[in-house]
């Protein structure tokens, strides 16, 4: 059966000037906020709990529950911080979303802030996307002018200030506690937990940090109801074993039609490829990531695994950001894993030893292997080092760095061995490019 797409966040993106308030209002823009303001903050949180929305930034934590952890009635201010740092390799949903419709994110941020009783919210957006930043800046201006931000929002008596804050280039700042340090004007390094941000976050005050897509999904839940949202996705008696709502799947790599596909939770990669023309013509699927480079690789064996939190966990990986990077048989898995490993080593913030030292050594060994200078023992060393990093690092960057290594060794050990036997890479890098034959080049670094 062909799957049915469910454009909700993406519904306006093909409209002329979709980023403007005028267009957004024609598509029920800010209707979710109007609905929210007729309810108490706790009722709004309950609706989001009932919808079973889970975080779309990678970890999949239930959003309503996170809001519910904010202690209320204390004397400290409460903050909302939207994580718009989108830098996990392969992940490319939040940036096009904010470019096409920044207002839906702003509306979600106002609703979330109201629910947790915050008077100040921030959107922390990576700096390397200047046009997205312009669209956010302008949309915030428009929202203030229209009374959706500022004092006495829509006559409700509720006040909120929203600030767009540009980062300055550091993957680790996507990690929520590093992001808070960065927003406080420091080096972006993760904090020790507890205390959790819900208790002591920004300026040691209670803080909710949510991903762009999580917050962007909130207006539709308020417009259409929790039952509508929970009507999409997978089912199970155990709430932890089901995934609800629609989501953005980002398809990239060796496919006929890369792009953003908004569908219900739990479709399969096979269904998505069938719908979109499949792997690029004349080639076949070799390996893929379900949710960015920090999620263990999967193969053609896993084409029918549901793209849901529980489904992908069942295949020993993670749904992550639903960044489906597709690689065909022309791709050298050792080269791919080496490049990701170099990325993690470069982005390791250096705060803890297992990650700082471990990623350095992983790169040295991977380079040796790709160049054909390695030996059989190196494969075991990769696993041993990964073992020291996994679970012993201060934050999830370290864990993520081991994912490509351990999963590629599990599924493609033979290919590592082929590098040893042939004294180098058996692949022609130009065959993997989209302009095969037009140029051949040496590796870039």
């Amino acid at each position, binding site marked *: 059966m062909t799957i*049915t797409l469910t*454009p909700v966040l*993406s519904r306006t*993106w*093909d409209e002329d000037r*979709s980023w*403007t308030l005028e267009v957004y209002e024609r598509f029920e823009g800010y209707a979710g906020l109007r609905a929210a303001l007729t309810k108490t903050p706790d009722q709004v949180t309950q609706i989001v709990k009932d919808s079973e929305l889970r975080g779309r930034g990678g970890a999949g934590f239930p959003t309503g529950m996170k809001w519910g952890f904010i202690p209320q009635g204390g004397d400290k201010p409460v903050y909302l911080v939207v994580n718009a740092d*989108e*830098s996990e*390799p*392969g*992940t*490319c949903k939040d*940036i096009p979303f904010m470019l096409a419709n920044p207002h839906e994110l702003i509306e979600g941020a106002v609703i979330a802030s109201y629910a947790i009783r915050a008077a100040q919210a921030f959107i922390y957006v990576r700096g*390397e*996307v*200047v*046009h997205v*930043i*312009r669209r956010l*800046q*302008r*949309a915030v*201006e428009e929202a203030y002018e229209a009374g959706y931000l500022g004092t006495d929002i829509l006559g409700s008596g509720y006040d909120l200030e929203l*600030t767009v*804050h*540009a*980062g*300055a280039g550091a993957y680790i700042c996507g990690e929520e506690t590093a992001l808070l340090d*960065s927003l406080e*004007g420091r*080096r972006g390094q993760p904090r020790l937990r507890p205390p959790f941000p819900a208790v002591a976050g920004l*300026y040691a005050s209670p803080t909710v940090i949510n991903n762009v897509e999580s917050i962007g999904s909130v207006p539709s839940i308020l417009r259409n109801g929790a039952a509508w949202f929970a009507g999409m996705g997978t089912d199970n008696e155990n709430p932890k074993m089901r995934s609800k709502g629609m989501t953005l799947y980002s398809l*990239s*790599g060796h496919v006929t*039609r890369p*792009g*953003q*596909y*908004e569908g219900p939770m739990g479709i399969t990669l096979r269904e998505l490829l069938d*719908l979109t023309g499949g792997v690029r013509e004349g080639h076949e699927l070799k390996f893929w990531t379900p949710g960015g480079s920090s999620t263990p690789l999967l193969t053609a064996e896993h084409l029918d695994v549901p793209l849901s939190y529980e489904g992908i966990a069942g295949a020993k990986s993670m749904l992550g950001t639903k960044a489906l*990077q597709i690689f065909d048989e022309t791709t050298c898995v050792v*080269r791919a894993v080496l*490049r*990701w490993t170099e*990325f993690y080593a470069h*982005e390791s913030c250096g705060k803890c030893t297992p990650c700082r030292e471990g990623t350095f050594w992983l790169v040295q060994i991977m380079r040796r292997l790709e160049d054909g200078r390695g030996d059989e023992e190196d494969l075991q060393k990769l696993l041993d080092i990964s073992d020291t990093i996994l679970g012993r690092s201060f934050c999830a960057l370290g864990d993520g760095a081991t994912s490509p290594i351990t999963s590629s060794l599990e599924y493609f050990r033979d290919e590592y061995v082929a590098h040893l036997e042939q004294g180098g890479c058996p692949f022609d*890098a*130009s065959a993997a*490019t*989209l*302009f095969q034959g*037009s*140029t*051949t*080049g*040496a*590796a*870039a*670094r």
Partner: protein
Amino acid sequence: MSAFAPEVRSRLEVDAKEIIARYPRSRSALLPILHLVQAEEGFVSPDGIEFCAELLDLTTAEVAAVATFYTMYKRRPNGEYSVGVCTNTLCAIMGGDQIFSTLKQHLGIGHDETTEDGTVTLEHLECNAACDYAPVMMVNWEFFDNQTPESAVQLVDDLRAGTTVTPTRGATLCTFKQVSRVLAGFYDGRADEGPAAGPATLAGLQIFREQQESDEGKDGAT
């Protein structure tokens, strides 16, 4: 006192105070103020660091420790255009590596180096959240989607010749300094330029619209 000329300093001070006012605590203004001094000088100079330190009541060592942590702050004068090629895994494999090595050869410079005429600083970049448009390049943090070695050479030649260049998804290209000012939080009025989305962003929506049309067609027939 930092070594900015008095009129520069007083102009920057007005901007910096506006930035500080956006935050509950002044230190949060540090990243945007670093973007601001970069907008003035094209990099973060020792003068720029001193300026930040004075305004935020920090030591220059504290400011420098922050500035060096983030890759977007340049320690040497940047070219008018930062030309970045994504060489993270997906783009690299789809052709980013070939594009980067072609540009190195063509321009005769390496990573983080600037052409002698001061127009182009070449960099390899990590994933820029545009993987569905791989291979991706960024010029002054604007998207140049679906590049090839040939299109990349044309692009840098145009930049060096002063020809107007338009990003795939973005506004008419500004200089590195102008863009840094936007990053400091000063909107430049260009949000309405460029498209809402590229074809890959709309791929799902387009299939959905086709599905709907064919469903309507069926309904009409019965």
